[in-house]
């Protein structure tokens, strides 16, 4: 022991020194990045991690409660709602609201809330809670460093296969990641998602589930999607026990719905927190005053929440099924944190959604609706919602940078005609020629085409054309991939012509 003792002690001292240096360097980086006007997200964490590899464990170990939100769609919205539930309880949650959801982004968020000794600052009640959205493949890097954690899994759709691989592979990675979770960890997941139900069955973790109270009214019956329809929005999902394809009594979004293995290995269970499916409602709730061009809005109707944790009425961030699922997920997260369904519903009553996910703006006297598209399911949901909005013009932006996904073939898997038929269409982005082909080869558009199709080489030009094609008081839908949406949004902001419309 004596021989090993000294190097051991030496290593520990060196580690402490390295720790302080690492925090210092990272804190400084955070400061510089902050001063430079960038919201700089992952960089401080990156600097800290080089010098202080244990930063995540040391900082996160001081948290009283940690909530991780994982999933394909709805991560940012759900995490924002949960953070609001925590806020309403008098705590100040640490969050990565800017969406930096890789390991380094989370370390950065923690570093910003720590002092030079690597101690997390306490809130007024002397406690800290954290709500982080976590990238699909970052979960396995983060979870082993955390104590008891609430993991909220929203859904798992086929998404950016070029980065994540097949959905089955993501479930395998999550299964092994969850095996490293500390005792006392709870898994909160969507009961309508068979992939998550099979994930939950493969873990030893206690669970809380959320989902729809019953089949949605505004979707085609099961027989029209999947095996006989022409689109491929819903992935085929096989039972992990017997390999047979799951059967559905009803579907909601993509492969979510009332599923069952034909041999009985797995089936949907009634959710612990059940939200009534929303009644379809369009843009009628938002109006432009024709004389002042001032936008007004009546908020989304509240949805009825039921289940074994009690009843409440909760207001979603948007009118569609995605809004309903996000609210149910957030309330389930709140329950895991000790907040009742009623308290949670009150807390999120006035929540503002994150940018770009069905965000409403007023630009030059026109209604502008922003919808972020990134995969087949989000495109299908945007098309579904967009077809109910009163709009004259549709701007579609398709980029293929790594943040967008380099493979753009998903645009062929969702129906697109309901969004663009009879409207003026403006196409832009690095892959706008693919969008053009997508519209040209659409069978439904052959009989009911768009009014006209314009190609714009730059985002700024696309925005100008789209606004010019939209009459004053009219509506413009912008559906764009991540980098195209960021670009379009910053152009709108720079021109100072946009004002947000309340939800």
């Amino acid at each position, binding site marked *: 022991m004596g021989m090993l003792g000294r190097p051991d002690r030496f290593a520990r001292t060196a580690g402490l020194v390295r720790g302080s240096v690492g925090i210092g360097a990272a804190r400084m980086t955070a400061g510089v990045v902050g001063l430079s006007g960038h919201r700089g997200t992952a960089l401080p964490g990156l600097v800290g991690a080089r010098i202080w590899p244990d930063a995540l464990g040391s900082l996160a170990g001081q948290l009283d409660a940690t909530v991780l939100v994982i999933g394909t769609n709805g991560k940012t919205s759900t995490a924002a709602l949960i953070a609001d539930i925590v806020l309403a309880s008098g705590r100040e949650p640490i969050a990565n609201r800017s969406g930096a959801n890789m390991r380094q982004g989370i370390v950065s968020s923690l570093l910003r809330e720590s002092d030079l000794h690597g101690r997390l600052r306490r809130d007024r009640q002397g406690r800290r809670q954290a709500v982080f959205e976590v990238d699909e493949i970052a979960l396995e890097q983060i979870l082993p460093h955390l104590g008891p954690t609430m993991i909220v899994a929203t859904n798992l759709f086929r998404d950016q296969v070029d980065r994540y691989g097949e959905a089955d592979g993501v479930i395998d990675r999550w299964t092994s990641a969850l095996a490293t979770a500390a005792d006392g960890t709870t898994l909160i997941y969507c009961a309508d998602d068979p992939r998550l139900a099979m994930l939950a069955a493969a873990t030893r973790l206690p669970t809380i589930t959320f989902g729809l109270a019953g089949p949605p009214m505004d979707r085609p019956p099961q027989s029209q999607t999947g095996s006989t329809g022409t689109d491929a929005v819903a992935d085929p999902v096989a039972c992990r026990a017997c390999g047979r394809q799951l059967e559905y009594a009803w579907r909601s979004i993509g492969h979510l719905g009332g599923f069952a293995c034909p041999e009985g290995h797995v089936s949907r269970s009634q959710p612990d927190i059940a939200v009534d499916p929303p009644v379809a409602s369009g843009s009628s709730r938002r109006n432009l005053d024709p004389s002042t061009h001032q936008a007004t809005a009546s908020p989304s109707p509240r949805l009825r929440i039921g289940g074994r944790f009690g009843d409440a009425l909760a207001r979603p961030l948007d009118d569609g099924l995605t809004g309903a699922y996000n609210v149910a997920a957030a309330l389930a997260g709140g329950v895991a944190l000790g907040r009742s369904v009623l308290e949670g519903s009150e807390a999120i009553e006035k929540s503002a959604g994150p940018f770009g996910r069905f965000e409403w703006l007023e630009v030059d006297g026109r209604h502008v609706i922003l919808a972020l598209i990134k995969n087949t399911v989000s495109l299908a949901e945007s098309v579904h919602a967009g077809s109910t909005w009163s709009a004259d013009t549709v701007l579609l932006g398709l980029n293929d940078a790594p943040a967008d996904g380099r493979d*753009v073939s998903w645009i062929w898997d969702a129906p697109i005609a309901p969004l663009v038929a009879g409207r003026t269409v403006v196409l832009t982005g690095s892959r706008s020629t693919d969008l053009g082909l997508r519209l040209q080869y659409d069978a439904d558009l052959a009989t009911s085409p768009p009014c006209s199709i314009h190609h714009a080489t730059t985002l700024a030009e696309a925005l100008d054309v789209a606004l010019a094609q939209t009459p004053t008081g009219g509506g413009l839908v912008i559906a764009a991939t991540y980098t195209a949406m960021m670009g379009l949004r910053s152009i709108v902001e720079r021109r100072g012509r946009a004002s947000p419309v309340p939800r």
Partner: protein
Amino acid sequence: MGPARRLRIVHLFPDVLRFYGDGGNIRSLVTRAEARGFETTVTRVNVGASMIPTADLFFIGGGQDREQVTAAREIERLGPSLRDQLTDGAALLAICGGYQNLGIAYRTAFGTELACPGLLPVRTDANGVGRRLVGNVLARLEPALVAVGASVAGAAPGAGESNLGRTVVGFENHGGRTVLEPGARALATIEIGHGNNGRDATEGVLLLPGDAGMGGLRIGTYLHGPLLPRNPHVADALVAAAIARGGPLTRLAPLDDRRELEAHRVGVDRMRRMAREDGRIPEWAHRMLDPVKALIGY
């Protein structure tokens, strides 16, 4: 009497094999055949079907391993009918998972050897092969297929000004490594991307009518994107071969392909520019950047 003015397409197992836009291939075939006045039907054959209907052109797409296991069982059950029809002159387009499934042998990532009908002269191994082969692909088409394309193509507007009929563009995303049987012809030779296995610069497999006593044109490939809308010359070769059913090819009336060729050209130009930019970054810089890229998920 000339051949019937119709094209019967059968889409094999779309309930389990449908991945990343492969339905766009069907749309391309239907649109381009109908534009030439051919009455076109698409029949979807799902898992559990009692038989495979008569077709001029079979399409099979990609899927995940679990779905490929299901497809393999169905192909084994219904395979004899498919084999007879292909020998008789029907054409075949098999993408990604379907390409692997219809070869001589396929071992999944789980290590399971799937039953394979040997309709395409390739063997695929996805077990313990390392990272997935993912990215944009630019490849030079096999000259024999370029000749087929040239022999059926009319003087389409925009086609004469370039060599676009000689290249194929798409996006690949596969774990399996595929090797051609000795003497088999690749569909294309890789310029940018990985292709069948990332080693021998081959992409896909091509059987021409008459090859080894076979009837119709058969194409197996890893390229989706989807393949055919941006590669109209490949779509037309399939349409013409399917209609000819192994007999002499007839010319197809020209279509206005300016948008298709523009999308093809955008793909080619972007890939070549990115490859040049990558080439300007020295290897040591790549080695330094790679861990950073891995950390931020680039």
